[in-house]
């Protein structure tokens, strides 16, 4: 009927989408809407539709089988919201880049929050919408995914250079996807540590139009090159233009921390939390920074929110319970801490890490309430767990050291503090906290010597290793740094330096299977200790290059 000209220039065969082959999942808490959405999908040929009423059901369904299309309401009642669901699905690799994830928002305000989120959905719809709009947008996203197929394939195989080449092909040949390809390439460049190129790329986008995500990308590229003043200037502009862009506040807090301005970092995170309070990781960070700043009320609220809003979230760890209890005790609220432990007993008992949190925190409560016999029992339990290899985060281990000291177990305490210090030889905040624990126990001099010995060893080995590597003596550098790794088995900086010199050595001297195995192990540990660290992806890629050059296929590698 319609007489159209110039619309849909793509050839008919290229533009065909077989809707009957698509598997769809509708996530919506309101039953009426859920069924109406299913009906809409059925009307344009998507017949394989599953329904989920909340995030937990959605995750269950996605684990059972894979979906091509997830249509998800932002507001899912009391549990996690749609954005949290998306972050968990991507974080846990439950959905791939090929899966279309579309968010439905009712509030036009949240539409902006969703649209500008760092981990953005493929597209979003404002409720109420007509079936025609849904169909048209789904079709656009499916075509885009088709155009990016090679890029995604390389990305998922961690062939980042090939993924970048794929983006370049789109940038040159598909003007429709120019901006999408630039955006993806920018993220790849940052992952690879090619910050200068990323900076130039974002400038290129901004020269077309100063859209907020491009300016955020520019700011991040600047920050990663330690150009924090320029980064902050860009961010202030972004916030004025797009105040609902939460990621800008997260980045600003990183920039402030780099400038050693923790109070400003806290202010930035508080603004981010005011926009989107549910994100667990933002609350965790706010709690930590507020705690460092001595703002116990804010820290307590943030850590409580982590547990409350993050119920069932993959981002919540046993350490989060320890964090909240620590603040409560510092506020003198022993009962509050005891209640948290009691209420979450079964969760904590389920893992050795949780048991350690429980034992350490219980020990602290007993020490503070003068019940020394019970404290000694809890301390013994914690020590037994540690001897079996269980560890907590650095702050929990310092709590443990403090409790050991209060129970008179000085040797164990010194051992724990030494270990923490070796693993965090460059962290001012943790070393200061360790010193404080010794001061409070009246062992200032003992503490100074424990810390000095621990950090000096690691620092010396690390520096010597790096100097040897710079002189080109990679073999000796490897020895130094592997010794440092043995001394400080959870120190991400040392691990990464060790991996770096091993790769240099193999590059120069030829294949050495044992060394490569050590590099793999240390890289994995570095990733566990400092997830998302800027150097990791570059090292990962170099390792992969070395492996493929020498014809090694890792067992089970994708």
């Amino acid at each position, binding site marked *: *009927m*319609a*007489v*159209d*000209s*110039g*619309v*849909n*220039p793509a050839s008919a065969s290229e533009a065909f989408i077989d809707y009957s082959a698509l598997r769809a999942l509708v996530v919506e808490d309101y039953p*009426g*809407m859920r069924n*109406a959405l299913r*009906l*809409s999908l059925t*009307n344009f040929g998507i017949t394989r539709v599953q329904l989920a009423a909340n995030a937990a059901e959605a995750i269950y369904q996605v684990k059972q089988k894979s979906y091509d299309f997830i249509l998800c309401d932002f507001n899912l009642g009391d549990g996690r919201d749609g954005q949290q669901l998306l972050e968990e699905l991507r974080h846990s690799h439950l959905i791939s880049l090929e899966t279309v994830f579309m968010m439905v928002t*009712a*509030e*036009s305000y949240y*539409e*902006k929050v969703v*649209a*500008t989120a760092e981990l953005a959905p493929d597209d979003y719809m*404002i*409720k*109420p*919408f*007509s*079936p*025609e*709009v849904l*169909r*048209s*947008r789904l079709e*656009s996203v499916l075509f885009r995914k088709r155009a990016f197929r090679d890029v995604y394939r390389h990305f998922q195989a961690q062939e980042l250079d090939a993924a970048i080449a794929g983006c370049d092909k789109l940038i040159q040949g598909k*003007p*429709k996807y*120019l*901006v*999408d390809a630039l955006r993806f390439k920018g993220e790849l460049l940052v992952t690879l540590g090619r910050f200068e190129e990323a900076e130039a790329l974002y400038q290129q986008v901004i020269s*077309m*139009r100063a*859209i*907020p*995500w491009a300016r955020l990308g520019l700011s991040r590229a600047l920050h990663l090159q330690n150009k924090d003043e320029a980064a902050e200037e860009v961010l202030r502009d972004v916030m004025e*233009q*797009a105040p609902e862009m939460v990621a800008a506040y997260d980045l600003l807090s990183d920039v402030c921390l780099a400038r050693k301005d923790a109070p400003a970092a806290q202010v930035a995170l508080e603004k981010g939390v005011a926009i989107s309070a549910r994100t667990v990781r933002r609350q965790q960070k706010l709690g930590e920074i507020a705690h460092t700043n001595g703002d116990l009320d804010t820290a307590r609220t943030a850590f409580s929110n982590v547990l409350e809003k993050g119920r069932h979230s993959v981002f919540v760890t046993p350490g989060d319970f320890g964090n909240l209890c620590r603040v409560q005790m510092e506020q003198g609220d022993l009962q509050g801490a005891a209640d948290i432990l009691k209420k979450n007993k079964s969760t904590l008992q389920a893992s050795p890490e949780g048991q350690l949190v429980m034992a350490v925190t219980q020990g602290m409560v007993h020490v503070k309430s003068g019940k020394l016999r019970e404290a000694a029992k809890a301390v013994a339990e914690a020590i037994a767990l540690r001897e079996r290899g269980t560890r907590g985060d650095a702050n929990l281990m310092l709590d443990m050291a403090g409790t050991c000291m209060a129970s008179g177990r000085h040797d164990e305490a010194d051992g724990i503090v030494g270990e923490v210090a070796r693993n965090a030889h460059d962290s001012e905040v943790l070393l200061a906290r360790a010193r404080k624990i010794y001061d409070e126990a009246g062992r200032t001099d003992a503490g100074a010597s424990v810390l000095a010995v621990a950090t000096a060893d690691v620092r010396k080995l690390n520096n010597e290793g790096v100097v040897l590597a710079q002189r080109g003596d990679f073999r000796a550098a490897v020895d130094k740094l592997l010794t440092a790794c043995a001394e400080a088995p959870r120190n991400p900086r040392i691990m990464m330096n060790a991996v770096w010199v091993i790769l240099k050595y193999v590059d120069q001297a030829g294949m050495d299977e044992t060394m490569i195995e050590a590099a793999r192990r240390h890289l994995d540990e570095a990733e566990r200790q400092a997830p998302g660290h800027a150097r990791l992806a570059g090292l990962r890629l170099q390792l992969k290059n070395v492996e493929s050059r020498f014809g090694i296929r890792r067992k089970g590698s994708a």
Partner: protein
Amino acid sequence: MKFDGTDLYAALIHELKNDLGLLSMTIDGIPLQGDTAHDATVDAARLLCQNVVDRLQQSLLIYKAIDQPIRPAIDAWSPHDAVREIRDRAAALARGRIRVEAALAPDVPEIWFFDRDLVEMALINAIHNSLAHARSVLRIEASMTDGCLALTVRDDSAGYPEHILACVATNAPCQSTGTGLGLQFSRLIAQSHDNRGRRGELRLHNDQGAVFCLLLP
């Protein structure tokens, strides 16, 4: 939650908008029976329902624009996709009662920078107008004018009345009900688009019918 008076109204409108959206989807589910009396009634209900939904969406936006200027969320979008989407929506609303055409000039680029949701709201508003007044045809066009992307809705109605053309041409406030309200809203959206000092415009004229045109810099 705590509301003051106006926030309460906004929340209420918001809820009504969502209920009406559901009602509209329910009406979509009523099958056509080939019986003109029945089908025409269902169509009329559907159109009216969609119209009210779109109007409520506008009123929420205008309510917000009282306190602060509309801040568009600009990103790169395909004008081709936008025209296709609007054409499909118009065709669904028209249900064959009025013919819907679409045309893209060859010089329209593959991507342009604008706030897709705001621009589509403005265009849908014009389409409701045209569906109410057109005799037989409605046409959606994309072209380049004065370095701007021009998105146009034209029909074969009797055209805009003189006072409407005058108020849009002089940037004066229009009457605050019906067509006037919608046009005022579209003008706000157009003007909120700004590229290096060049502001967007709403242009209206009559040319064998009403011609509604958004110019996006």
